[in-house]
């Protein structure tokens, strides 16, 4: 690939390969099935997205990510790698954060999805959205919707006592920078806004008045 043929998308794909847990030799193709391709029958899918009930007819191949972006035009959620390796596509389904690129929309028929557009609006920002702005938790912003969906979920996961790789005592889960960094490792940021993302999360955690923090 010559450097002047680099598009933003191919650059992101390339970086996803570098950042990958599994070294893939070829840049993974991120082609989404177009809304009406394929000979197979469409399937009805009903979702509650950001509080709104939606009815879709989808090729079963449609990922939840493509359903959100291409069919519901909720383009806040981003496609980075399309292979679970970057976290840009993170959304909250039935209260838990997942990678929307590695799941099919049909698998979520009847379920509730929250995207960045559903967390808050420009007029009424979610505290985490506000904190990202205050702490400068992004540069290009491409990873940010995924980062924010993860960040909101991470604070809930800590409050629920779910342990992480850096938890010393499995029965005593408490907030620390190490915990936040480890739990956010599924969200890659090519602009390396990491320290400011941690600051934003600490800020929101502080506002919640939660206890049990460790330095």
């Amino acid at each position, binding site marked *: 690939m010559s450097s002047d043929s680099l598009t933003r998308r191919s650059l992101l794909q390339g970086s996803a390969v570098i950042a990958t*847990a*599994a*070294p*893939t*030799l*070829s840049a*993974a*193709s991120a082609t989404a*099935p177009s809304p009406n391709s*394929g*000979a*197979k*029958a469409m*399937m009805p899918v009903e979702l509650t997205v950001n509080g709104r009930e939606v009815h879709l007819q989808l*090729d*079963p*191949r449609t*990922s939840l990510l493509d359903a959100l972006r291409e069919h519901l035009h909720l383009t806040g959620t981003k496609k980075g790698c*399309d*292979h*679970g390796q970057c*976290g840009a596509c*993170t959304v909250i389904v039935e209260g*838990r*954060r*997942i*990678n929307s690129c*590695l*799941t*099919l929309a*049909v*698998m979520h*028929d009847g379920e509730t999805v929250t995207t960045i557009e559903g967390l808050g609006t420009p007029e009424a920002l979610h505290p985490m959205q506000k904190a990202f702005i205050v702490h400068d938790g992004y540069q290009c912003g491409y990873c940010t919707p995924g980062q924010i969906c*993860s960040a909101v*979920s*991470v604070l809930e*996961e800590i409050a*629920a*006592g*779910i*342990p*992480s*790789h850096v*938890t010393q005592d*499995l*029965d005593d889960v408490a907030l620390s920078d190490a915990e936040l*960094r*480890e*739990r*956010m*490792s*599924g*969200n890659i940021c090519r602009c390396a806004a990491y320290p400011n993302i941690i600051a934003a999360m600490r800020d929101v955690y502080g506002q919640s008045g939660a206890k049990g923090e460790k330095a």
Partner: protein
Amino acid sequence: MKSFTYERATSVQAAAKAAASVQGARFIAGGTNLLDLMKLQIETPTHLIDVNHLGLDRIEETPEGGLRIGALVRNTDLAADKRVRRDYAVLSRALVAGASGQLRNKATTGGNLLQRTRCPYFYDTRMPCNKRQPGSGCGAMQGMSRSLAILGVSDACIAQHPSDMAVAMRLLDSAVDTIDANGATRSIPIADFHLLPGDTPQRETLLKPGEMITAVTLPKPIGGAHVYRKVRDRASYAFALVSVAAVFGKDGTARFAFGGIGAKPWRVAAADAAAKQGPKAVAEAALTGARTTHHNDFKKLLVERTLASLYRQQEARA
């Protein structure tokens, strides 16, 4: 991605039956491995059977004093379960060492056991690979083999088993419970569940076509100090180069299982027997028969040093 049809199974029995009767059918659980491979057309199922809604997401106590983990229990929920944290901490530790928070929320017990290798040539459809395309050759053998296995490998394939969870389950002598299309159930010791590549690296487990995993059963707790140490290229969100699961007893006995180095989760009785002689002896026993390449020879020393570090940690705690 190739076209496929999709159904949501309504019972365990119906799922197994459908899987055996439809040519090219596959189960889908979390989808985090299968869909990844389908996008690259490494997997091309014609029909997907969604097993997410069959009530297999519970963890129950067994009459023997162990735990029966439903095949659809998510990795996050298994790691966080109070009984697992208390009695099988090595399993919690192994789980949270794997993948990312998002992926663990989706990944299931059954799917994790069946996840396929991360060999870079298996992932690159332009390359020869005996596992992906039997008889095409092995791109890794003379290629970039740094991440690949050194134990249980064959002339046909040197792929590593990528799972962290399965290493802890191997350490704990778990069993994999299944059901087939006729409704027949069996319980397969995890030691036998994964196959070595031999001449048929495309065959990875003892499962017959259509046979479905319903649960993984843990025997009653064995006590001891539980540890899982994973060594990788990044501090998080990366597969193991080497991992060691261990349970240390108070009397100097210990048991060990290894990840990142084997064609399947690796455990050797002689390594456990060498526990009192220290890390060098354990490593030597575990690595008997190791076959390395220029790129992955470092794993032998890394196994020994990882063990040494665990021993030091144990001594510091004692």
